[in-house]
C-alpha cells in the first residue's frame, strides 16, 4: 500500500468515526404492586377488677357475684388489679389473617408446634391453637370459611370453636379447608385449632366469618 492510499484510508476511517449512529435509549418499564393488608385489632382492658363502680352495669351491683374480673364486687377495692381481658377482636371485613410474624393470637399454652418468622411448622400430632381471634360483643358468629395455605394441607385437621360472650367454650367443630360451614353452636367469640397428621408447614391462615 502506497503512502497516498494510506492517507485516504485514514480519512475514510475518520469519517466513519465522526458519523456515529444515533444514540438510542432503552427503557425497561415494570410494575411492582404492593398491598397493605390490615389485619386484626385486639382490644384488651386492664383494671376494673372487683371494685365497686357507681352506675357500672357489672361492677355497680352490690351483692351480685362477678365483677369484671369474675369476683365479688367490693367497695373500696380500686386500682388495676383486674388483670388483662380481651374485650373484642375486630377483623376488617370479618376476615382474620394470620401470617406468623407475631404471636398475638397464638395460644402458647396449647400450641406444641414451632411458629414465627412467617410460618408455622408442624410434625405429626403437633397442634397449632389460637387465642380468641374474632370477637364482637353482642354479635354471634354462625358460619365460617377456614382456609390454610400449606405444603401438605391434607395432613391438617382444621377445627373452630365458638365461645359465648362471657367466654364459655362450645365444642370444637371440624371444618374442611376452603369449605363454608355453619356452626352447630354459635357464639360471639371464635378460636381455631389445627392438628397435624404428618409434617406440614403453614404460611397463612384466612378465616372468613359472619
Amino acid at each position, binding site marked *: 500500500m502506497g503512502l497516498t492510499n494510506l492517507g485516504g484510508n485514514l480519512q475514510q476511517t475518520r469519517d466513519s468515526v465522526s458519523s456515529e449512529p444515533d444514540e438510542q435509549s432503552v427503557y425497561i418499564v*415494570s410494575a*411492582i*404492586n*404492593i*398491598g*397493605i*393488608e*390490615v*389485619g*386484626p*385489632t*385486639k*382490644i*384488651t*382492658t*386492664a*383494671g*376494673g*377488677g372487683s*371494685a365497686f*363502680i357507681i352506675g*357500672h*352495669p357489672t361492677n355497680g351491683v352490690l351483692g351480685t357475684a362477678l365483677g369484671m374480673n369474675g369476683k365479688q364486687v367490693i367497695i373500696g377495692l*380500686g*386500682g*388495676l388489679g383486674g388483670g*388483662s381481658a380481651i*374485650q*373484642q377482636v*375486630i377483623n*376488617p371485613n370479618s376476615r382474620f*389473617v394470620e*401470617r406468623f*410474624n*407475631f404471636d*398475638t393470637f397464638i395460644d402458647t399454652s396449647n400450641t406444641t408446634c414451632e411458629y414465627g*418468622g*412467617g410460618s408455622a411448622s408442624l410434625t405429626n400430632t403437633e397442634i397449632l391453637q389460637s387465642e380468641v381471634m374474632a370477637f*364482637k*360483643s*353482642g*354479635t354471634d358468629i354462625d358460619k365460617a370459611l377456614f382456609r390454610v395455605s400449606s405444603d401438605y394441607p391434607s395432613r391438617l385437621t382444621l377445627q373452630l370453636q365458638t365461645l359465648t360472650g362471657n367466654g364459655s367454650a362450645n365444642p370444637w367443630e371440624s371444618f374442611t379447608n376452603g369449605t363454608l360451614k355453619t356452626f352447630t353452636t354459635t357464639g360471639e367469640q371464635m378460636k381455631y385449632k389445627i392438628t397435624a397428621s404428618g409434617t406440614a408447614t403453614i404460611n397463612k391462615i384466612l378465616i372468613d366469618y359472619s
Partner: protein
Amino acid sequence: MVLTDTGVNKAAEVFTSFLTKGQWGTGTADPSVSNTGLGSAIPDTLNGIGTAQSGNGFQCTHTTSTTEGNDYDLTEYELQFSDGTNFNRLVSAAIGKTNNIRITTITTVNIVRV
C-alpha cells in the same frame, strides 16, 4: 422479575414509621372506605402509638390510660399518620370507659404482594 422477601420486609419497616397516632371515638356508623376520620373523636384519647415490625408485618399499639376517655362509650377507633391523616377506622361494640380501666389496642398490618 420478582418482588423479593427482603423488599417486602423493608417496605413494612419503612411504612411502620409513617403511622404515629391512634384515637378512640363515639361514632357508630359502619366503617366505609370513604371515611376520612372518626365520626366523633374523643380528644384526650389521641395518643402516640408504639410500633413493632417483624417480617412483612408490623403492629401498632395504642393505650388509653385511666385518666383518658372517661365516661364515654368507646365505639370507634382509628390509626393516623403523623400529619393526622386517617389510616383506618373500625367500629366495635361499646366499651364503657371509667377511671379504673386502661385500654390497650393492638392492630396488625401486613405488607403483601398483590
